[in-house]
């Protein structure tokens, strides 16, 4: 019994210590890229999003960015993108753009579909340098855009750091 109790306390202390460490690291990393940027310019990810939307306002729609809530290894974080679309010649998802808000370079990829795709769905793996929001923008054949974002906590960054 006594043995078990000791283990329990150790585990708790470890958990608290680990959380503190992660928080400190996240703060340090968050300060990095922001400080290096020109204060008058919007952040790089915002520029990337503006370039995709070209002034359009995203509408509501069924768009899913599926990623783990916590990524242990930022070098390879699996993601799945899907939109509810019939994928016919007149009504289909033309493209899905993935933008990271916390990597040194915001671009991840643009996936381009055709009516022959049959399903607006793609899965792949991305790099995440730190805990951040990932943005997904879907471009529809009628010129409208759908947008969603998701926060992913990263324990070990994936940008060579």
């Amino acid at each position, binding site marked *: 019994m006594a043995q078990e109790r000791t283990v329990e306390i150790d585990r708790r202390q470890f958990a608290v210590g680990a959380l503190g460490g992660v928080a400190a690291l996240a703060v340090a990393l968050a300060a990095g890229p922001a400080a290096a940027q020109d204060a008058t310019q919007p952040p790089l990810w915002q520029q990337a999003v503006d370039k995709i939307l070209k002034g359009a306002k995203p509408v509501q729609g069924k768009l899913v960015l599926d990623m783990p809530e916590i990524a242990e290894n930022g070098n390879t974080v699996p993601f799945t993108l899907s939109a509810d679309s019939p994928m016919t010649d007149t009504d289909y998802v033309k493209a899905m753009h993935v933008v990271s808000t916390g990597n*040194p*370079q915001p*671009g991840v990829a643009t*996936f381009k579909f055709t009516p*022959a795709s049959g399903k607006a769905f*793609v899965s792949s793996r991305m790099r995440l340098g730190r805990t951040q929001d990932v943005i997904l923008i879907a471009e529809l054949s009628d010129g409208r855009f759908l947008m969603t974002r998701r926060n992913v906590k990263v324990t070990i960054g994936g*940008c*060579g750091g």
Partner: protein
Amino acid sequence: MLKPRIKLPETAKAGDIIEIKTLISHVMETGQRRDADGKVIPRMIINSFTAKFAGKEVFSAEIQPGLSANPYIAFFMRVPGPGEFEFTWVDDSGDKGIERLKLNVVA
């Protein structure tokens, strides 16, 4: 470029929506890292992927440095009938990987 790995269903019928899984070995150097001497390691990524079926483009990707090394991309296609896939990867040096694969379409 190294030989890619592709996974198709063993058989498919016209009208089926099938999943195509692709994987290729590539370092996907972001251009952000520095070597031991502090010099920036130049960017070297696969920047484009295209999938054609029976000569017609089905799916493509413009890839940026945020995609992981050894890019894995899985996507879908509605089978129009018998035919052959042609997958093309291109990296920053212009090096191309091309893979052709027949889809076994059954009646």
